[in-house]
């Protein structure tokens, strides 16, 4: 009789173990795609429109962020960056500082394209400098240095961000991933590593 009870308990244990392997196996398979999803996370400058009034440049940059992998669990926490306007012929760069903060938070599911629209008002002294480039017959291009701060399953232990540089004159531009950083902190200070 006691053997029957023990057999029953063994069956229960095996059932729990097999269920755990199935569920844990799916999580592990998803985890294996985590680092490649960071490496392959695409930031695209879909379109850039701008106009000048002689003193300032108004522009609208449309970006998309695409996770081309099957990894589930990436979330965009912050879209931040700086931009310059550069004279293509003169190679003179006019720094404008931080981009306006965009409402872009949300999940980056597999194959999903998150759209981020950034309205830019490039005025002030730098606006005049950029207009000077135009008046001198130079062509201008926008250079965006963007950090995507991501929320991942590692949030409790570290932060993850991806850095990109995007350039565009008007219409679609090009973006390149510069680095992916996994930042860890400890009592003694901070550390980081590029993936």
């Amino acid at each position, binding site marked *: 009789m006691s053997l029957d009870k*023990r057999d029953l308990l*063994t069956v229960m244990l095996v059932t729990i173990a097999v269920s755990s392997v199935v569920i*844990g196996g799916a999580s*592990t398979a998803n985890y294996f795609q985590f680092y490649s999803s960071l490496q392959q996370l695409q930031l695209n400058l879909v379109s850039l429109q701008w106009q000048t009034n002689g003193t300032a440049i108004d522009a609208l940059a449309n970006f998309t962020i695409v996770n081309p992998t099957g990894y589930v669990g990436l979330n965009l926490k912050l879209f931040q960056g700086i931009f310059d306007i550069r004279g293509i012929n003169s190679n003179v760069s006019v720094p404008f500082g931080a981009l306006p903060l965009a409402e872009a938070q949300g999940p980056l599911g597999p194959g999903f394209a998150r759209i981020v629209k950034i309205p830019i008002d490039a005025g002030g002294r730098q606006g005049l400098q950029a207009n000077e480039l135009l008046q001198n017959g130079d062509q201008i291009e926008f250079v965006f240095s963007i950090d995507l701060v991501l929320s991942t399953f590692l949030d409790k232990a570290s932060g993850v961000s991806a850095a990109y540089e995007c350039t565009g004159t008007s219409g679609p531009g090009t973006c390149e991933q510069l680095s992916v950083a*996994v930042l860890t902190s400890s009592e003694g200070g901070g550390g980081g590593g590029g993936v």
Partner: protein
Amino acid sequence: MSFVLAQAVYQRTFLSAVDIVVLGAICFLAGMISLDLGRALLSYLGAMSIALVLLFILAMLPFATGSYAPEASTVMFQLWLSIIFTSVFPFNFIMLLVVSVLGSGFGEKYL
């Protein structure tokens, strides 16, 4: 045990209450089946050691391909060591040990 830990740390880096209950059930059942305190203790220590080593190996497996910077491997090595250690030690480790012992006592008495 390894895969219960895997689905926890590979999704959120810590054990939830449900994970601890499932691990507790596994330890309790295993303890009951072992029918002996010494064997239950040894089985628990062995299973936990294998589970943690396997968990760490699986966590570092993506870096074995060599497609990531060496600095990244070093940082992730330290990070995963810390994640796995803090998710299990000391509270959960001791609690599950006690549950295994209770299971073996229960098994000795009722089976």
